[in-house]
């Protein structure tokens, strides 16, 4: 009987530790950071300013204009692709589908897929791609934009994309980038690896539960 008591106590302790762990878990913040010293109420205060995604303007598969303001109060995942990509894009979007299905009913979540081939991937082409993928509504936006704007924004997501090479292929990273409501980079995942994408789904849930994400509108 005495032993049983110890065992129960141990189990409770174990649960307690685990419980604490998951409630305090937060994701790291990536990108450049700069210390900024300000004067608040006559006192010098040093704060860290993190890299954020700059302002942008693209058009989604419905022909709607999407800017950084469309993402206010949203946690989102960004990636880069093109509809005729024979290499990693089908793998990335095959892996993205479960993420879409998991969060499609959450109004504070978005997926942004930037086409790096704006010449071919016009708005109707992107709409057709969305229909064939079986995605509807406003959770997953396929974005068309000026090539320079897309290539510039890729850099701010720390993703490398390049123009057509000698084999007439575009080359680009297959990363999924997780952005928080303050437009900071909170995770990068290899979109071609189902295990990493599963980790991303878990991380999105952790991020959604962070107090400053819940508070942000």
């Amino acid at each position, binding site marked *: 009987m005495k032993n049983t008591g110890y065992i129960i106590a141990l189990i409770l302790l174990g649960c307690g530790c685990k419980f604490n762990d998951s409630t305090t878990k937060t994701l790291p913040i990536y990108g450049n950071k700069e210390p900024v010293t300000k004067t608040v109420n006559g006192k010098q205060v040093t704060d860290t300013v993190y890299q954020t995604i700059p302002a942008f303007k693209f058009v989604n598969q419905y022909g709607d204009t999407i800017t950084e303001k469309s993402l206010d109060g949203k946690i989102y995942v960004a990636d880069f692709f093109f509809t005729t990509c024979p290499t990693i894009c089908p793998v990335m979007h095959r892996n993205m*589908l479960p993420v879409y299905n998991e969060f499609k009913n959450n109004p504070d979540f978005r997926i942004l897929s930037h086409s790096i081939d704006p010449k071919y991937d016009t708005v109707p082409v992107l709409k057709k791609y969305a229909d064939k993928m079986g995605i509807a509504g406003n959770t997953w936006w396929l974005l068309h934009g000026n090539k320079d704007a897309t290539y510039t924004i890729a850099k701010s997501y720390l993703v490398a994309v390049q123009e057509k090479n000698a084999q007439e292929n575009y080359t680009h990273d297959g990363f999924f980038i997780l952005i928080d409501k303050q437009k900071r980079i909170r995770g990068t995942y290899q979109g071609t690896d189902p295990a990493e994408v599963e980790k991303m789904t878990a991380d999105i849930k952790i991020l959604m539960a962070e107090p400053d994400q819940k508070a942000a509108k």
Partner: protein
Amino acid sequence: MKIWLIVSAFVAMLVIASSCQNEGQIEFNRFYSNGSVVYQAHCQNCHGAKGEGLQGLIPSLIDSIYLKNNKNTLACQLNNGLKGKIMILNKEFEGEMPASKLSPLEIAQVLTYVTNSFGNKLGTINTDQVNADLAKCK
């Protein structure tokens, strides 16, 4: 004495028959396992590790009836690419599959793999068949 002759002849026949069968099986195994390597390198990104395709964008490879009905033109599809509408499992697809740069041997290997995986069972497609099919491409 006579009985021994009959028995040994029978045994010899059995051995020959089974070795023939083995050779066929060996050829199949060779094509199939090399085909799985070709598949991973050239087909899997789009068609998926289980031949599942991708939604309405990329057809699956599990439609045994389609594969059977088009067995003699599959080599041409791989060699020249495929454009236009096709029906797979009663669903219409109209994307474009790029032409592969595979050799006839690789085409034979990968077709043996695909037509004997994902629930399909069409037997070996060897290089001679592929060359004959390729000669008849439209």
